[in-house]
């Protein structure tokens, strides 16, 4: 199933990345050749094979319900490009 420019636009919106027309076209082309390469996995029969989500086989890792020190407000906001009255300031919702 080939990826169209329209598909690229939809993916870009989902991925929250703005692309211009030229980029959309270039990506559509590159995606198709990369996905074409991935097609070789279709030829491999993986029926009955369990997926490996975690390669190390570890289970049940926890921490105790203990309070540790939080960052002071200035530290939390230190890298914030815009902030106001202790809040991070961001673009409007609508």
């Amino acid at each position, binding site marked *: 199933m080939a990826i169209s420019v329209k598909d690229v636009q939809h993916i870009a919106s989902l991925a*929250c990345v703005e692309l211009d027309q030229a980029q959309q076209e270039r990506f559509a082309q590159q995606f198709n050749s990369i996905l074409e390469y991935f097609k070789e996995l279709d030829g491999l029969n993986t029926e009955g094979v369990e997926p490996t989500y975690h390669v190390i086989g570890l289970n049940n890792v926890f921490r105790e*319900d203990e309070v540790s020190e939080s960052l002071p407000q200035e530290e939390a906001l230190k890298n914030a490009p815009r902030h106001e009255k202790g809040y991070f300031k*961001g673009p409007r919702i609508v």
Partner: protein
Amino acid sequence: MDGEVIIGLEVHCQLNKLNSKLFCGCSTRQQGLEPNTMTCPVCLGLPGALPVINKKAVEYSIMVGLALNCEIAEHTQFYRKNYYYPDLPRGFQITQYDWPIASNGVLTVESDGGDRVVRIRRVHMEEDPGRLVHQGSIETSKFVLVDYNRSGMPLLEVVTEPDLRSPKEARRFINKLRNILEYLDVFDGSLEGALRVDANVSLKGGARVEIKNISSYKGVERALLFEISRQQNMKRRGVKVTQETRHYDDERNCTITLRTKEQAEEYRYYPEPDLVPLSVKGWEPRLREKLPELPDARRERFKKEYGISDDHAKVITSEIRVANYYECVAGKCEPRLAATWVADYLKGELNYRDMDIKDAFDPEMMVYIMEQLKKGVITDKGAVELMRALLDEGGHPKDIILARNLAKVETDVTKAAVTEVLKENREAIGDYRAGKAQAFNYLVGMVMKKTNGRADPSEVNLLLRELLECT
């Protein structure tokens, strides 16, 4: 309405009785904080920071699952729910998808004309995002302010099947769920933001509408009433209801179309690589034993042990703090009388003042009041006035009785008042003799007035009849 309305609920409860957040050690204390003062690299989503699961949160979740008669998962795993929004610091929420911690439970609530069995589809764990603050309304604000103190707070999401059939049932369900959580001591429902509800509602044969942003028990019923009415209006006009997500505006009591969030729900769920799977079914026996007495069981025990009515038992056990309060009092006073005074009188005064019982006077004071009643020091009316004073101003019952002269007047004082009233109200006596029963009540009222309500009504009754016979 019944039979036509279909309601399902997704209830988010903060496990605010935990000390620390779900994946980091920041405190869960949320009251009275300056913004962004309860964060760390993990809940702020700083690059490189990693989550670690709070063990007690898992225990609490299992206990809730057990209390809701669920099956506990053999194998449970956290997932990433990927979407962008300013309140989500990592661009994904760590939640559960396949393999939730508990599923297939049931909770029964009272319905008009019987019981409603509500199936619990699943109970799962997830974290809260941050909190957005707008200048004005969400639609007109020129910017958004974000506070991540709430980010990472442990949430339990309880999802029901669409088994509810009215807004009232929905409210009852929420209340019962809240009650169970408080009995388990995993949750304090009186804290702001502790409980949030999303509701799915449709009319039979119609599209399903999701309502988000309901944050109070009363809000659930109001939001549903509005939405059902909206859908019914559309149906009457022949307009089709669209499947959508609507935002509940508590202030204006209406639901509005939310065009701001991604309507296409492409969450791209996949298992969280930074968190390994959990095998915790083995904890079930130990945690089952730890389960405290739950509301329904306590209700039955109260009926049996204290001999109180089902109605009283229901009211008293509907909040764990009230139940605990009652047991304190019932332990030292006549239980049935205690039930009346706690369930009817005290709860009545609290409801009127929109107060929680935790802000009321101590149960010891209630015991004192009931002892004074028993000794005949004060009348019922005096006791009520005393309770009101304690709730409104505080202090100690002993002092208030003195200060307000609440002590019941002695019999001779009452007798003197009765004699005076009879002297002053010849016409009323005539009416009474003529067979007008209201005249008697009028005379009682005059005696009460003369004694500033301090007379014992039953004593007044007796004395009036005696003296009326004589004269």
